[in-house]
């Protein structure tokens, strides 16, 4: 019923400075280097694992935001795309022996194609219909994977990763660095989308698809670009997963947690801006991680549930909404 036009925080009018790319990239890389150096100084593998956990959500939330935040199309199928990436990496490794990095590249391609397919299949759907369609897609994908013996089917697939990678102290560090770069890339892409006409077009679609079309916005093409980007980034977020855990089964890969976090994190940070998902993912991701490793009982999930409720209740326009004056 609620059509594509979901009431979101009004996009900030891009200040002239917002369009400058070099400072952003320098800043982003700077932050990344800083994070990496700091973790390395701590010299503790757990930092890398916790960091990986959070960063995968940065990528996932950012990807969701491209379609959900800018264009107002709420994707319930994040887990499906994520798993598609993970299983692409597994299949590639089984077929060719190529490992993580080629796996990520392949996942991007598969995710983009899948996103494109979703876009085509659901292009007539708006609002909740689109959301449910993505949910269905995830179910269908899961069934396919479960019945696909080549990648282990329901028994799951093992990936025995090397214990060491050349210049890194551990494989965990390597994985973390890869995810860090992916996160920088994802956020950079999201921001580029936001400040270019693509982002404007998507926002116009979110607000009023019919009017957008009437003033010359190629809505279908833009949506397809957005679904493809979203799919590719989500798949990329999932590609290292089998390397991270050494074993992957469909239930784990299609876990509801990914779908929920992909939506909740941008909302909590502030949907519709590139920084929102980052803030949300870092906040909610660290909270979850912290709750898991400090509370040795089921209480940890309970707390995460309450925090989710409280966050959205007190910051309805996301954390960013607090700082942005209502115009």
């Amino acid at each position: 019923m609620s059509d594509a036009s979901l009431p979101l925080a009004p996009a900030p009018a891009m200040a002239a400075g917002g369009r400058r790319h070099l400072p952003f990239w320098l800043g982003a890389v700077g932050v990344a280097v800083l994070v990496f150096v700091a973790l390395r100084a701590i010299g503790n593998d757990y930092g890398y694992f916790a960091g990986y956990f959070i960063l995968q959500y940065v990528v996932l939330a950012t990807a969701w935001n491209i379609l959900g935040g800018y264009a107002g199309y709420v994707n319930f199928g994040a887990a499906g795309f994520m798993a598609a990436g993970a299983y692409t990496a597994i299949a590639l490794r089984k077929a060719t022996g190529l490992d993580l990095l080629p796996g990520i590249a392949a996942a991007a391609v598969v995710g983009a194609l899948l996103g494109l397919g979703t876009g085509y299949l659901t292009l007539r759907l708006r609002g909740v219909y689109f959301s449910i369609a993505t949910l269905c897609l995830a179910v269908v994908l899961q069934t396919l994977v479960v019945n696909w013996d080549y990648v282990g089917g329901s028994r799951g697939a093992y990936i025995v990763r090397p214990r060491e990678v050349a210049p890194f102290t551990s494989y965990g560090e390597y994985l973390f660095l890869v995810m860090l770069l992916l996160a920088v890339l994802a956020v950079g892409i999201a921001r580029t989308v936001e400040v270019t006409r693509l982002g404007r077009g998507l926002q116009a679609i979110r607000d009023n698809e019919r009017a957008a079309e009437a003033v010359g916005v190629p809505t279908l093409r833009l949506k397809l670009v957005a679904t493809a980007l979203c799919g590719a980034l989500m798949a990329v977020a999932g590609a290292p997963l089998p390397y991270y855990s050494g074993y992957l089964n469909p239930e784990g890969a299609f876990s509801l947690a990914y779908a929920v976090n992909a939506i909740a994190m941008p909302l909590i940070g502030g949907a519709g801006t590139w920084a929102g998902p980052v803030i949300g993912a870092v906040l909610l991701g660290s909270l979850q991680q912290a709750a898991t490793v400090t509370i040795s009982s089921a209480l940890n999930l309970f707390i995460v549930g309450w925090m989710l409720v409280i966050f959205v209740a007190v910051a309805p326009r996301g954390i960013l909404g607090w700082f942005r004056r209502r115009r």
Partner: protein
Amino acid sequence: QGSNPLRIGYSMSLSGGLAPNGRSSLLAHRIWQEDVNARGGILGRPVELVYYDDQSSPANVPGLYTKLLDVDRVDMVTSSYATVMIAPSMPVVMQRNMCYVTLLGAGVNEAFKYDRYFNMNVTGDDIRANYAKGFLDVAARLPTPPRTIAILAVDNEFAQKAAESARYLSKQRGLRIVYDRSYPPTTVDFTPTLRSIQAARPDLIFIGSYPPDSNGILRAASELRITAQMFGGGMIGPQIAAVQAQLGPILNNLVTWDIYSPEPTMDFPGIRAFQEKYRARAVQEQVDVLGNYLQPYAYAQMQVVEQALNRVGKLDQAALAGDMHASIFNTVVGDIRFGAHGEWAEPRNLLVQFQGIRDGDLEKYKKPGAKVILFPESLKSGELRIPYGAPA
């Protein structure tokens, strides 16, 4: 140094789908901890358990084990229950060369080939050749030898391995497989599936299922009045008190894989004392009230760690692994020895049959006779009754 605790770390499924087994194993661990501390701890140090809830989500596991090893700096690691939780911890544990005693994994080490891995499970090295052996051996001695078999298994790793074993052994013994399908864990209604099986008229029905589905399958089977010479095989669920209470007479004559039954043949030293303590606390802790399933194994898991440490006398992972490879452990689930790949050197898959079950009262499961052991020969405590579906 004396009061500096010896810390054993692991992740546990305290919420989510694996929580029932996770929580009851945790209770077993805590009972062991109390016992061992009452004996003065290990190496003169009191034992402390450090565990986190993995929420039954494999993705949480690598992070938790890194935390345990790098931040909490635990002295030993063990595992939570089930393959899907053990496998993601392997790379982390292997990275630190820790000696690793796990609980009810199935074939995890086939992929990793880690020589400090030890698994508390009865399946042994070769699941395919062993898991369904009891079912088919017993079937082979039926008065009218069976010619056909139907196989149904849930889409998860353990049940699929079970089904694979049934498939493999059936072929080996010349049984015709007249139905062979799997079903998704989200299945709500099993009626159509079982009816298809019924339509194939198999002599034997082998089912690899998990707790919530086992109920649905057995209920549907009773509603459809399915009969077969033998029905069951690899069902996980009938071992659990809540399931036994609910299904009552439906379980009668069901034959299935198991790991423990309170029959005289399995009256190992210490098991009764353990179960007494366990049952005294189970209701309050809201876990399985009988403790007839993996709980003794969880206790035994820690006994292995304890005995190895006491023998080696120091926290030397390599030496501990060496000891575990070499020694025999006397546990509440019997004397065990680990083979080259860390599985039990001698598999001990049980085939049990529920007999004379008229109601859901649980008292009978504390005593011998309700769940008799048909296989292996060495532990056999009763004779097969056929067919499934006959009233008690």
